[in-house]
């Protein structure tokens, strides 16, 4: 396997109802945990290149609620929320995860951080209750990407006017 300064996200589907995301970071786990759980920092990375985070609420205690709102480049708003169920600082975070556009499809996310030689392997296991919900979850990510593509296409088209 190639050694790079930062890893590449790997997504696998271990069972019909799960999504497993893994990624290595060139930073110790307490910093990854901080970036994952601090609202000002979440705002800087969570939207990726698809928009910007307008709200990141984190009540980091068992039973506490989290909610993120993102405005995608297309102008539409998407929001996610959930409750923290298990918290082991810098190591493990279990939380429910609901896309507010699909409120019936609640997932359970388990974040695990493992550090070695100052680098951290992050694994995020997304457990859905049904295969349909799991598939819809992946599709919604894909639609986001397609939307982004359409937006870029629109820009190109406009520049040709």
């Amino acid at each position: 396997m190639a050694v790079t300064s930062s890893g590449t996200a790997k997504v696998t589907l271990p069972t019909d109802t799960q999504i497993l995301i893994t990624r290595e970071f060139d930073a110790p786990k307490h910093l990854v945990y901080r970036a994952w759980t601090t609202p000002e920092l979440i705002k800087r990375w969570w939207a990726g290149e698809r928009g910007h985070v307008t709200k990141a609420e984190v009540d980091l205690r068992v039973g506490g609620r989290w909610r993120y709102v993102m405005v995608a480049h297309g102008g539409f708003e998407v929001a996610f929320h959930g409750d923290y169920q298990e918290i082991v600082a810098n190591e493990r975070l279990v939380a429910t995860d609901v896309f507010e556009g699909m409120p019936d499809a609640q997932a359970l996310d388990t974040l695990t951080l493992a550090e070695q030689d100052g680098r951290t392997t992050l694994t995020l296991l997304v457990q859905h209750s049904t295969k349909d919900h799991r598939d819809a979850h992946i599709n919604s990510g894909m639609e986001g990407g397609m939307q982004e593509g359409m937006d870029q296409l629109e820009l190109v088209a406009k520049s040709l006017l």
Partner: protein
Amino acid sequence: MARAATTTDAFNAVAEPRRRQILDLLAAGERPVNDLVAMLDLAQPLVSKHLRVLRQVGLVEVRDVGRQRLYRLNGIPLKPIHDWVKKYEQAWEERFGQLDAVLAELKESEGNGDGSD
């Protein structure tokens, strides 16, 4: 109960964990059904049934060599599944790319702090 949709495409065919296991085994090379039966510890009729579904969606091909039927993987129908997951993976990689930048900054500010807190 019959799962009517299993043979419609590769997505449905690989929804069944045993069939994914069969594909994993065939990924290592061509095999007769008896090998699969032994490796999976399943009854032959059941393995044959799974193989039939996999053949119907084109994921498995078969050829006769002497008295043996050898089954092999054909990965091409898996490409749409691969592409499907890839898109989702890309979205996460974009996110993690931004997270890399945040972490680089956190590392730097911790270094500058030099244990002063």
